[in-house]
């Protein structure tokens, strides 16, 4: 294998691909990135056995071939080369040389034959295109609520499916860790009907979100029983789906919460942040909301350190109502609200609370109160 390409182009592709390579691996070859030179193109590919990312970029090939080299080292080398320099890659005697300007590197290769591939020879039943920004929005709105708990593995991702509401179709994304639930939806692009429900793993979601950053183009999505494939220009991300049943989130989304609180988002966020300074990090940062008519008092009591409270003007037409939340969870949700005001809908101090934006039902958040 021998080829020449431009450093920035190589770096860009490599940065997309190398990130999914784990720092510690059971199989040495999983630490490597596959480089395939053919047809005046070079393909870079990496995998962690659950996700596979590959990208093609133009290169001038003088000898076709395939090899694998340690991904992070290769990336670091290319990153440190001169901006806009030419890079020559050549494989000889199980070593790949990297030559650029006056620099010269030799990296040990592992034979590409042993490089695992996520077999994608299956039926991708659902195929559709979606705008990068729309997809990114769905992720952004829900990603924070993904669970990290191993025992309920089916919560370790974003659940996506198509729903029909008043004759319109939506793609809906849901994530929950049992403490909070985030739900967002966008109008279903054509061809996206009948997605019965897939769970996209946390790592895939987070890689995808990085790849989508700043893109405006259309993304191809293909879904099979066990995998999902995203095609973003010359990049393909193939990921296993989480097998399992996502809980019936509709059942736990409150419908009869009738106590409505309207509060200025940024005032509320900074007040919660301020009073929770006193809360113990481990103590779940409990913050109590005491609402009485048009006044909200935020109270934090830390038995080891002291207390804090702050009063905010709000819109609330009920008599005195008290409820406690984990400040961090509360701030996570407030951080997702883009309208000036945030709307909370309460039932009682032990039941799930609903939060949403003003004049927008596309995104909905459910938060479990803290009870003592």
């Amino acid at each position, binding site marked *: 294998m021998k080829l020449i390409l431009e450093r920035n182009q190589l770096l860009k592709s490599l940065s997309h691909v190398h990130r999914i390579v784990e720092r510690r691996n059971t199989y040495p070859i999983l630490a490597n990135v596959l480089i395939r030179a053919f047809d005046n193109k070079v393909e870079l590919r990496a995998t962690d056995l659950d996700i596979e990312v590959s990208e093609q970029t133009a290169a001038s090939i003088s000898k076709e071939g395939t090899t694998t080299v340690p991904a992070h080292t290769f990336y670091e080398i290319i990153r440190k080369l001169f901006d806009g320099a030419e890079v020559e890659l050549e494989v000889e005697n199980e070593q790949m040389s990297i030559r650029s300007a006056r620099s010269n590197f030799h990296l040990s290769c592992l034979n590409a034959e042993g490089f695992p591939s996520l077999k994608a020879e299956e039926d991708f039943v659902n195929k559709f295109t979606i705008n990068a920004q729309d997809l990114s929005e769905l992720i952004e709105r829900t990603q924070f609520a993904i669970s990290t708990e191993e025992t309920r593995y089916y919560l370790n991702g974003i659940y996506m499916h198509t729903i029909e509401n008043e004759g319109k179709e939506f793609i809906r994304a849901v994530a929950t860790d049992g*403490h909070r639930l985030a739900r967002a939806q966008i109008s279903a692009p054509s061809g996206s009907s009948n997605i019965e429900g897939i769970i996209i793993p946390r790592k895939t979601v987070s890689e995808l979100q990085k790849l989508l950053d700043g893109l405006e183009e259309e993304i191809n999505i293909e879904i099979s029983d066990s995998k999902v494939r995203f095609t973003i220009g010359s990049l393909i991300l193939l990921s296993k789906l989480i097998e399992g049943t996502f809980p019936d989130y509709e059942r*736990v989304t409150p419908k009869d919460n009738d106590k409505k609180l309207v509060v200025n988002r940024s005032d509320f966020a900074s007040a919660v942040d301020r009073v929770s300074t006193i809360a113990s990090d481990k103590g779940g940062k409990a913050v109590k909301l005491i609402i009485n008519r048009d006044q909200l008092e935020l109270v934090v009591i830390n038995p080891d350190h002291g207390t804090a409270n702050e009063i905010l003007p709000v819109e609330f037409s009920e008599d005195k109502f008290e409820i406690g939340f984990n400040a961090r969870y509360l701030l996570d949700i407030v951080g997702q609200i883009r309208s000036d005001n945030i709307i909370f809908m309460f039932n009682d101090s032990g039941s799930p609370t609903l939060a949403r934006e003003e004049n927008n039902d596309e995104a909905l958040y459910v938060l479990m109160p*803290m009870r003592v």
Partner: protein
Amino acid sequence: MQYLCRDCTKLLNINQIPSRCGECGSPRILAHEELEELNIAHFDCDSFFASVEKRDNKELIDKPVIIGGGKRGVVATCCYIARQSGIHSAMPIMKAKKLCPNAVIIPPNMAKYKYVSKQIFALMQPLTPLFEPLSIDEGFLDFSGTRKLHKACAAQILAKIALKIEEQIGVSISVGLSHNKFLAKLASDLDKPRGFSIIGKKEAKQFLAPLPISQIYGVGKKFAAKLKKDGFINIGQLQKYPKSELIKNYGELGATLADLARAKDRRRVKSERKVKSVSTEITFSTDIADFSTLSTILLELAERVSFRLKQKRLIGDIITLKLKSANFELRTRAKHISFPTHFAHIIYEIGEQLLAKEVDGTNFRLIGIGVSSLLSGIGEIPSDLLEPKIYKKAKIERAMDILHEKFGKKALIRGKLYQIEDKLDI
């Protein structure tokens, strides 16, 4: 000037300090200008392990005794006779033998020393609420504000307790008295064994000046070497050096260094050590490999831990499972949970998850469970959007706790524990 007789413990007022006590004739006279004013004391048992062994075997009294050996093969401690041959703690036994071939070497009996230590601490405890045990055989005492209670000053109380310990326990202690911890600890080491030394406020700086920097609390070998390289050999040099410069050169450590060199030590004598973890374990009379039996025992242990946490109003978010196999291989597995808790059923569930991964046919002789990373409070009642049962379980436990408080622990027990109730009193 006042002086104190360390044997009849009388405090006398005479212009000139006599060589012997006017009352009892003892030569152990302690005189100091600030005798009545100093309140911070440090005590340290004299060659503790060796003293206990000598106490229990009179034949050893006039022989050089070394406690040590065992796996690591070093001297844990040695009596003062052995020290005359140049033996000191942490010296390899082989070397000690060469220096003193007729030394009697006794393997340490920690259980016995712990018991004696407890007895000594029990005598110290009533003297002041501010008693801070430091290790098995030493501790700090703060006598501020106890004068009216004892109708005696700190020095007198200390002289009395030193005699009492010799009499009742049969080991001797050395005492240091000063106005802060650093100096008190230095003082107790000045005139061992059976010592009593005082470092007053007035002479403190002067006293420290000629001492090597390694005498400063917190200056270990490495730091001492660094200081030496920078030209500091004795504490006096540090006293003359501006504090701001020391801070510049050594950071926070520099500030402490400057203060201690100037005989300032703000550390208080703290009576309570913070509880870091609450745990319990059980050694079986016969080894167990079976998951369900282990799991049932684990539930019982989780309840015990939970009970103690609730009593102390503590919650924690790290659950640790401990297992020891029949051939003494120790396994500890910990899990961090998302909220701190004291609930038995949660401690148990996490413990059981950890246990499930370890049960592989191995015979176990011990199982234990603990909760750490503690903070005070009662924590939240866990609730989960998706599993309403979690909330119910916690409510049930709270109800059980109320019943237990009213009618005793056996009033209501979990069904799973009913079957092993008698077996567990191993």
